[in-house]
Structure formats: C-alpha cells, structure tokens
C-alpha cells in the first residue's frame, strides 16, 4: 500500500515545522551561548549570537533556500508543549548525483538523550529517501561526537571515510568521520522493522 496517510512531519513526540521568525531567534540565540552544543554542531568557531543576528541568519537562509533549491531546513518542536528543541536539515543536494548532506541538532542539554534525536533523524531520513528520493545521504562528524556517531550507526550509516587530523580544538587535532547511508539500505531496514 502507498503510505501517504502517515504524516512526514510528525512522530510520537515531535513535529517538524518551518522557522517562526518571531519566537525562534530567542531560543536559538540561547543555544549559541552553549559552546558544547556549538562544537558538536559546527566546525566553524563557536561564538554567542544575539537574537537579532539569528533573525538575520534566518532571512539569509530562506533566501538561499529559494534561490539555490538544494537545501531543506526544519525546526524541531516537541508536540507536548510546542517548544522549539532543535533543528534538522538536508543541504548541498546534488540533484544530478542524487545525494545530500544531513545535519541535526538538539539545542538544550536537558533535551538530549531522550530519544528526540532518533525520532527527528527518522523523519529526516524518510523525507530524504521517500520524498526527495535521494540515492544516498552523507553526514560529517568529528570523532569526539559520541552521541551523533551512536545515532548514525543505529540507523545503519556506514563509516566511509576517516579524515585524519582534520580538525583542531582544545590544542589538539581530531579526526573527522564521513558517514553514508544508501536509500536501498534505509529501505531494507525499514522493511525489516515493519515485519518485526
């Protein structure tokens, strides 16, 4: 059966939504004041950003989405209290080669390790593979991001590349891993889980 009844943007506890230009800048500004989060999410230097700057970033982002047509961006909300808890995106999509890069972050420390990342990634992958019909997705993760690595492995991502000593933080060099998941791998896992 063609499963168009089950919602793409809703899971048990989460909802994916667009940017709220009024409410979201304040929340995301708080996330940028947490250097731990920023260093898990970005390879660019962590720096605190005001809500006003985040607001500008959103405007730039929406312009880029409209012009480049190779980026999909979601805000992650908890359904219980409609709180903004994170963001997820598929970027740098090469349509001719049918691949894209995924990124996902749960902003506040107290929201992590609660299974939100799993639910969000599940929605993001279904969107990538069953809506955009991508052939594969790729994710880049520093070796110190244990949470992300465990999450990717849980979904069957394969570590394809180890970029040795590609990142410098806290006075030492770190490896940067590249993980990949093919559409057919995702599909056969999903099928196996349904049958179980």
């Amino acid at each position, binding site marked *: 059966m063609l499963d168009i009844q089950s919602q793409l943007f809703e899971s048990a506890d989460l909802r994916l939504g667009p940017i709220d230009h009024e409410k979201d800048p304040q929340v995301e500004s708080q996330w940028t004041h947490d250097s731990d989060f920023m260093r898990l999410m970005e*390879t*660019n*230097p962590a720096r605190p950003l005001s809500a006003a700057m985040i607001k500008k970033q959103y405007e730039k982002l929406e312009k880029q989405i409209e012009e480049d047509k190779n980026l999909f961006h979601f805000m992650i909300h908890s359904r219980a209290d409609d709180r903004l808890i994170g963001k997820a995106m598929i970027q740098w999509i*090469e349509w*001719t*080669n*049918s*691949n894209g890069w995924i990124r996902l972050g749960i902003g506040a420390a107290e929201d992590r390790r609660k299974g939100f990342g799993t639910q969000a990634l599940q929605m993001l992958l279904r969107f990538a593979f069953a809506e955009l019909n991508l*052939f*594969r997705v*790729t994710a880049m993760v520093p070796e110190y991001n244990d949470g992300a690595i465990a999450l990717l492995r849980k979904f069957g991502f*394969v*570590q*394809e*590349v*180890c*970029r*040795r*000593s*590609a*990142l*410098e933080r806290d006075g030492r*060099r770190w490896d940067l891993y*590249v993980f*990949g998941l*093919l559409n057919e791998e995702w599909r056969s896992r999903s099928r196996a889980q349904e049958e179980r």
Partner: protein
Amino acid sequence: MRDLFRGELVRLTLEEPETRARAEVQWQRDTEFHRLADGDPALLNSERKIKEWFEKQAEEGFKPDRYSFSVRTLEEDRYIGFLGLWVDLIHSEAWVGIGIGEREFWSRGYGTDMMKLCQQYVFAELCMERLSLGLHEYNARALRSYEKCGFRLEGRTRQEVMREGRRTDVLWMGILREEWLQMQNGDGK
C-alpha cells in the same frame, strides 16, 4: 630558500583574464576532461562570461580562503592547466583541485609535478597541517599520481556520483604536514 613556483616540469603563474578565458573555453569542450575533474554536469559557458568571472576576480582580489594558479610547462612555456586551493585557516586544512586541459600532457608526470609544487606551497608557505582532495574512482591515473605524492586513501563515499547510468564512488585522500616533511627528508638523502 625554496623556489615555490618552479618544479621540474612546470611553473606556477597567474595568466591574464583573457588568456584564461580563451583556454577554459577550449578545455570545457573536452567532456572527458570535465568528467575526470568534476562531479557537476558539464557546462558550455561563453568566453565572455568566463572572462567576466576572471576580471571580477582580478578587480576584487582573491578571497582570503582562495588561492589559484595557472600552470605552464618549463620546456615550451605552454599554458596547460590550473591549480586551485581552498583554505580553512581555523583548522589549518587546505583542499586542492588540479586539472590539465591540454591532453597531450596527460600521463607524462606533469600532474605529479604540479601536485608536488602544491604540497610545497601548502606546507612551506601557507603552513597548513593538512592537505585534502577528492577524486572519482574511475580516475586511476590521478589516484596513482596522488599516491606517488604521498597522499593516503582515507576512504570512499559509496556510489556518490552517477555517470552514464552507473553509480561510482568518490575517493577521499589526505596528507599531513609531518608526513610531507618526512618525505622531504627521505628524498634529500
């Protein structure tokens, strides 16, 4: 001091916008060349458009993270290709892309000589910790050349590119500054 811009077969220059545009217009017609060097679709841009890009670059100067060179042979002073670097100053890493548009200079050591100059520039002048590159798995000639230059294969993103109806891998390679230094010392003895 080392001569940064002179190798055994080639030297690094920066050609004028009109010279570069004239060459690019020829090179882009060679789709085998394009498909070896790039993952994007082959494009045919007008000479005027290409010249405008180079002129804009000349007017504005290079962005701090961009270094590009033209490549000429030492022997006949032929303009044969290009070498471009993207530099991440924060994490001390550079990415390189090279191409030889003039086919008669393929498979004759020119690419390897270009890459050696590139490594010297990245490690001795830009003082980077790491140099990275990516290539198509079907580009066996490039792979051999890069291995000769001391790059290590660090993995492959499976079936990332679609060519002529077939999926092919992209190979990722890297060399660290200390590895390059070791090679230099080894060569000297």
